[in-house]
C-alpha cells in the first residue's frame, strides 16, 4: 500500500481528532473506546462516500482520499470488533451487551460467539464484513472500480451509523456482577461459525449490487459481466455453506428431526440466494449470447434488496407473532429510530438507487442482436432462471403473508406445507431443465442429436422412478421429482465427464448440478419416507420400537454438569449406546434435549428424548388446608398459606406441623414464584431426623392446596420413565453428499471465474462454448 501526501493527510485528519477528542471523551467518561471506534468508522465512511462522489464528478484526486478513508474505516471497525471481544473475554459487565449475551460460567470456546449473540454486535459484524469485501474490490483495476466503491460504501455509511447510535458498547443499566449468558441452543460448535458464514454470504450480495449500479451509471452494459461473475458465484457458495451448517446444526442439535423448516429466518436467507443463482445463470447467457442484459441488472439489484428485506422481516419484529425464531421484541419495529425503521430506510436507499438507475437507463440498454434461439442452451437456461425467480417470488410471498394479508383483513400466515406445495412442481421443472440445458449447444441445436444425447439419461430417470415407486414413493410430485432429478444427475454426469476431459474448468459447474440433484433426491427420501414412533422407556426395561430393542439405563451427569439419557439400543445388526443430552437449562427455563444420531450408510437412526414421564407428578402429596396425612411414623398437618408479595416475586410459605410420636415440630417450606414466569425456587424445611419437606406445587384456588414432597414418598429415581421419539432417516447421507459436492463445485467455479478475469475475453468465450 503506497500512501502519498494526500492519503497521509486524510489518515491524520481522521485519526488524530478521533484520538484527541475521543481520548478526552473517554477520559471524562462520556464515551468508551468502542464507541470512539464506531464514530471513527462512521466519519471515515462519510469521508469515503464524499470522496468517491467527487470522483464521479470527475475529481480523480478525491479517489485517494476515499480509498484512504475506507482503509481507516476498516481499521476502526476491526478495532471495534477486537474491543468487543476483549470486553467479552474479560467479563466487563459494565457493558450492557456483555451482560446480555455472556456470563462467567460460559465455556471459553463459546465466549467469542457472543459477539453475534445480539442485534448490535451483528450489525458491527455486518459493517466489518462489508468493508472487508470492499477492500478486496478496491484492488480491482477497472474504470468501474471507483463508482462501484461509491455504491458499496452507501450501505456501510448507514450500517456504521447504527453502530454509533446503537452499538454494542452502551453502558449497563445496572451494576451487574454476572451476565445472562448465551442461549444454550447456540452453544454448539456449528452455531459458533454458522452466523458469521451466513453474514459473509449476506454481506457479499452488496458487491454484485454495487458493480451493477456502477455499470448502469457508466453505461457499460456488458463490461460488468465478467468481473461480477466471481463475486456472484462467491455469494452462491458462501450462502450455501451457511445453509448447510444451519441444516447440520438443526439436525444434530434441535432434535425435531429435520434440517430445514421453512422458518422465516431460513426463508429470508433462501430468497436472495435463489435470486442470485438466477443472476449467475443469466450472466453466463449474457456473456455467451448478449441477451438478458436488463434481467441481469434487475436480479443483481433485487438480490441485495431481498437481503435487506429479509433482515427487516426477521430483525424488526414484524413477524414476532408468527415465528418462534424472530430475533427482536415484537414492538421493535414500531419504535421511531428503531432498527425496523432503519432497515426500511436501508431498503429504500438500495431500491431507489438500483431500480432508479435501471429505469433511467432501461430504454438505452441495447437489445440482443440475436434473439434467444428456440432450441438452444440459452433458451433453457432462461427458463431455468425463470423457475428460480418463481421459487424466489413464491417463497417471498409466503414469508410476507402476515404483511400482505394485513392489508385486506386479519393478518394471516401460511402453513409450512405451502412451501412444499408450491416448490414441489417447480422442482420437477427445475430437474428437467437442469438435465436438458447442459446437453444443448449455445445458439442452436438440432433436435435429433439432442434426443440421442438425452436418451441414456432418460432411461436412467425411468429406472430411478421405478425404483422409487417400488420403494414406496406413491405420490405423484415426489416421484416426479425423483424422476426429474435422476434425469438431471445422469445428463450432468455425461457432461461433467466430457468437461473434465477438456480440463477441470469445463466440468466443475456441471458437478454442482449433480450435487443439487443428489441433494434433492436425498431430501425426498429422508423427509417423506422415514418411520417414526414414540415410545415410553421405564428404566431398566426392554422396549421395542421400529424393530429396535431399547433399554433406558438411566441418567448420567457429564463434567459440565449436564445430564445425558443413556439408552442401550440393538438393531440393524448393530448394538450401540445412545447418549442424548437432556438437561434443565436455567437460561431457557426449560429442558434442553439433544438427539442421539446413529449413522448407517443407507439411513440414520434418530433418537430424540421427549420428556421424563411422571417425574413431577410422582413428587408429592396434595394437602388441602387443615388436612392431615401420616407417612411412616410422622403425621403432617397443613395449616395455612402465608403469601408475601415482593418485588416482582411472590413468596409463599406453607405452615406445616409435623407430629413425630407426640412431639410437634413446625415446618415452613417456602416457594418463590417470579412474576415474569420462570421456574419457582423452593426452599425446603428440615425435619429433626434429617429429612426435608419441600413444596412441589401450590394451588391458591379452591380454598388452597399444597403439594408437599415428604421423606419416604419422594420420587423414586429408580422408576423413572423416559419418553423418546425413535425415527429413521433414509438416505440422509445423500443430502450431505449432494450438499458437499454442490459446495465444492461452487467454490471451484468461483476460482475458475476469478482466473478467467486474467485472460483474454476472446479465449474465455471459447471455453464457455466448448463445454
Amino acid at each position: 500500500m503506497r500512501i502519498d501526501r494526500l492519503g497521509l493527510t486524510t489518515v491524520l485528519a481522521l485519526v488524530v481528532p478521533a484520538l484527541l477528542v475521543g481520548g478526552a471523551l473517554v477520559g471524562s467518561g462520556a464515551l468508551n473506546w468502542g464507541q470512539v471506534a464506531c464514530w471513527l468508522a462512521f466519519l471515515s465512511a462519510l469521508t469515503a462516500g464524499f470522496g468517491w462522489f467527487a470522483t464521479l464528478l470527475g475529481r480523480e484526486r478525491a479517489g485517494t482520499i476515499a480509498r484512504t478513508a475506507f482503509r481507516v474505516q476498516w481499521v476502526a471497525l476491526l478495532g471495534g470488533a477486537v474491543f468487543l471481544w476483549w470486553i467479552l473475554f474479560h467479563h466487563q459487565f459494565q457493558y450492557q451487551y456483555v451482560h446480555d449475551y455472556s456470563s462467567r460460567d460460559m465455556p471459553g470456546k463459546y465466549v467469542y460467539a457472543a459477539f453475534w449473540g445480539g442485534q448490535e454486535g451483528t450489525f458491527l459484524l455486518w459493517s466489518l464484513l462489508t468493508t472487508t469485501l470492499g477492500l478486496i474490490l478496491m484492488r480491482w483495476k477497472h474504470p468501474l472500480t471507483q463508482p462501484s466503491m461509491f455504491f458499496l460504501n452507501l450501505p456501510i455509511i448507514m450500517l456504521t451509523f447504527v453502530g454509533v447510535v446503537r452499538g454494542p458498547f452502551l453502558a449497563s443499566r445496572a451494576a451487574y456482577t454476572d451476565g445472562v449468558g448465551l442461549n444454550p441452543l447456540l452453544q454448539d460448535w456449528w452455531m459458533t461459525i454458522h452466523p458469521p458464514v451466513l453474514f459473509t454470504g449476506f454481506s457479499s450480495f452488496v458487491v454484485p449490487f454495487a458493480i451493477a449500479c456502477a455499470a448502469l451509471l457508466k453505461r457499460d452494459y456488458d463490461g460488468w459481466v465478467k468481473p461480477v461473475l466471481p463475486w456472484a458465484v462467491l455469494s452462491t457458495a458462501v450462502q450455501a455453506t451457511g445453509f448447510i451448517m444451519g441444516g447440520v446444526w438443526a439436525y444434530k442439535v434441535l432434535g425435531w428431526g429435520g434440517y430445514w423448516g421453512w422458518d422465516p429466518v431460513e426463508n429470508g436467507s433462501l430468497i436472495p440466494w435463489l435470486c442470485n443463482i438466477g443472476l449467475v445463470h443469466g450472466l453466463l447467457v449474457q456473456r455467451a449470447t448478449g441477451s438478458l442484459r436488463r434481467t441481469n441488472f434487475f436480479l443483481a439489484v433485487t438480490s441485495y434488496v431481498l437481503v435487506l428485506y429479509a433482515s427487516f422481516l426477521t430483525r424488526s419484529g414484524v413477524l414476532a407473532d408468527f415465528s418462534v425464531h424472530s430475533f427482536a421484541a415484537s414492538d421493535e419495529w414500531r419504535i421511531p429510530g428503531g432498527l425496523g425503521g432503519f432497515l426500511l430506510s436501508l431498503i429504500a436507499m438500495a431500491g431507489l438507487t438500483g431500480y432508479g438507475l435501471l429505469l433511467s437507463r432501461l430504454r438505452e440498454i441495447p437489445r440482443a442482436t440475436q434473439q434467444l434461439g428456440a432450441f438452444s442452451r440459452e433458451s433453457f437456461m432462461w427458463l431455468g432462471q425463470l423457475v428460480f425467480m418463481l421459487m424466489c417470488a413464491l417463497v417471498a410471498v409466503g414469508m410476507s403473508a402476515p404483511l400482505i394479508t394485513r392489508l385486506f383483513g386479519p393478518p394471516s400466515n401460511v402453513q409450512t406445507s405451502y412451501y412444499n406445495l408450491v416448490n414441489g412442481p417447480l422442482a420437477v421443472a427445475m430437474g428437467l431443465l437442469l438435465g436438458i440445458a447442459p446437453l444443448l449447444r449455445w445458439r442452436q441445436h438440432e433436435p435429433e442429436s439432442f434426443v440421442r444425447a438425452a436418451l441414456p439419461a432418460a432411461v436412467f430417470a425411468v429406472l430411478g422412478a421405478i425404483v422409487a415407486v417400488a420403494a414406496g414413493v406413491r405420490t405423484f410430485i415426489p416421484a416426479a421429482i425423483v424422476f426429474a432429478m435422476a434425469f438431471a444427475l445422469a445428463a450432468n454426469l455425461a457432461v461433467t465427464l466430457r468437461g473434465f476431459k477438456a480440463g477441470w474448468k469445463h466440468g466443475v459447474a456441471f458437478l454442482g448440478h449433480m450435487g443439487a440433484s443428489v441433494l434433492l433426491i436425498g431430501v425426498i427420501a429422508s423427509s417423506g419416507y422415514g418411520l417414526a414412533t414414540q415410545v415410553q422407556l421405564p428404566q431398566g426395561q426392554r422396549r421395542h420400537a421400529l424393530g429396535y430393542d431399547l433399554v433406558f439405563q438411566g441418567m448420567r451427569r457429564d463434567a459440565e454438569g449436564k445430564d445425558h439419557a443413556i439408552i442401550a439400543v440393538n438393531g440393524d445388526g448393530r448394538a450401540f449406546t445412545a447418549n442424548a443430552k437432556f438437561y434443565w437449562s436455567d437460561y431457557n427455563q426449560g429442558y434442553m434435549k439433544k438427539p442421539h444420531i446413529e449413522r448407517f450408510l443407507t439411513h440414520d437412526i434418530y433418537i430424540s428424548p421427549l420428556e421424563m414421564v411422571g417425574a413431577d407428578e410422582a413428587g408429592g402429596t396434595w394437602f388441602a388446608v387443615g388436612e392431615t396425612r401420616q407417612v411412616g411414623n410422622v403425621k403432617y398437618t397443613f395449616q395455612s398459606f402465608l403469601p408475601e408479595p415482593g418485588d416482582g416475586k411472590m413468596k409463599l410459605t406453607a405452615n406445616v406441623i409435623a407430629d413425630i410420636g407426640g412431639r410437634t415440630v413446625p415446618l415452613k417450606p417456602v416457594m418463590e414464584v417470579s412474576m415474569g414466569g420462570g421456574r419457582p425456587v423452593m426452599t425446603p424445611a428440615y425435619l429433626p431426623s434429617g429429612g426435608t419437606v419441600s413444596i412441589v406445587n401450590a394451588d391458591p384456588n379452591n380454598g388452597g392446596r399444597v403439594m408437599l414432597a415428604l421423606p419416604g414418598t419422594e420420587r423414586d429415581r429408580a422408576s423413572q420413565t423416559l419418553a423418546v421419539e425413535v425415527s429413521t432417516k433414509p438416505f440422509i447421507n445423500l443430502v450431505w453428499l449432494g450438499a458437499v459436492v454442490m459446495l465444492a463445485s461452487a467454490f471451484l467455479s468461483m476460482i475458475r471465474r476469478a482466473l478467467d478475469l486474467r485472460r483474454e475475453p476472446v479465449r474465455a468465450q471459447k471455453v464457455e462454448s466448448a463445454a
Partner: protein
Amino acid sequence: MNLKIILAVALLAAAAAVGVTSFKKTMTPYIGFAEARSASGLVQVNGKLADKNYVLKPQEQFLSFKLRDEHGEVMPVEYRGVIPGNFDQAVSVVAIGKYEGDHFEAQQLLVKCPSKYQAEADKAAKGKTS
C-alpha cells in the same frame, strides 16, 4: 410465437395457479377469540395463559389450558401431541387449529418464553443485580 415463449407463459400461469391455490389452502388467519369460535378453517389465536391451572398429561400427550387474549376474554384450548418442553414457562402461546364444540382444538402450539433469543433486560436486572 416460438416454443420458448409458450413454455414460459405456461410455466408462469401454472406457478401462479399453484401459488394462489396453495396460499388460500394453507392460510391461517390470525384472529380474535370471538371470530375463532365461528371460523370454519384453520386459524391462529394468541394470548397469555389465563392461569397456571392447566392439565398436562405427558403419557397421553394431552394438554388443556385457558388462554386469555388482550381484551381479557378467556378461551379453553386443548392440544394432543408432543408437549412443547418449555410450556411451563410460557409467557404467551400461539395456537393454530380450530374451534370445536366447547373448546379450541389446537393442532400446533408456538410457545414463546421470555429471553429465548434476545435478552430481556427487565428480567435480568431483577435476577442478577448485585
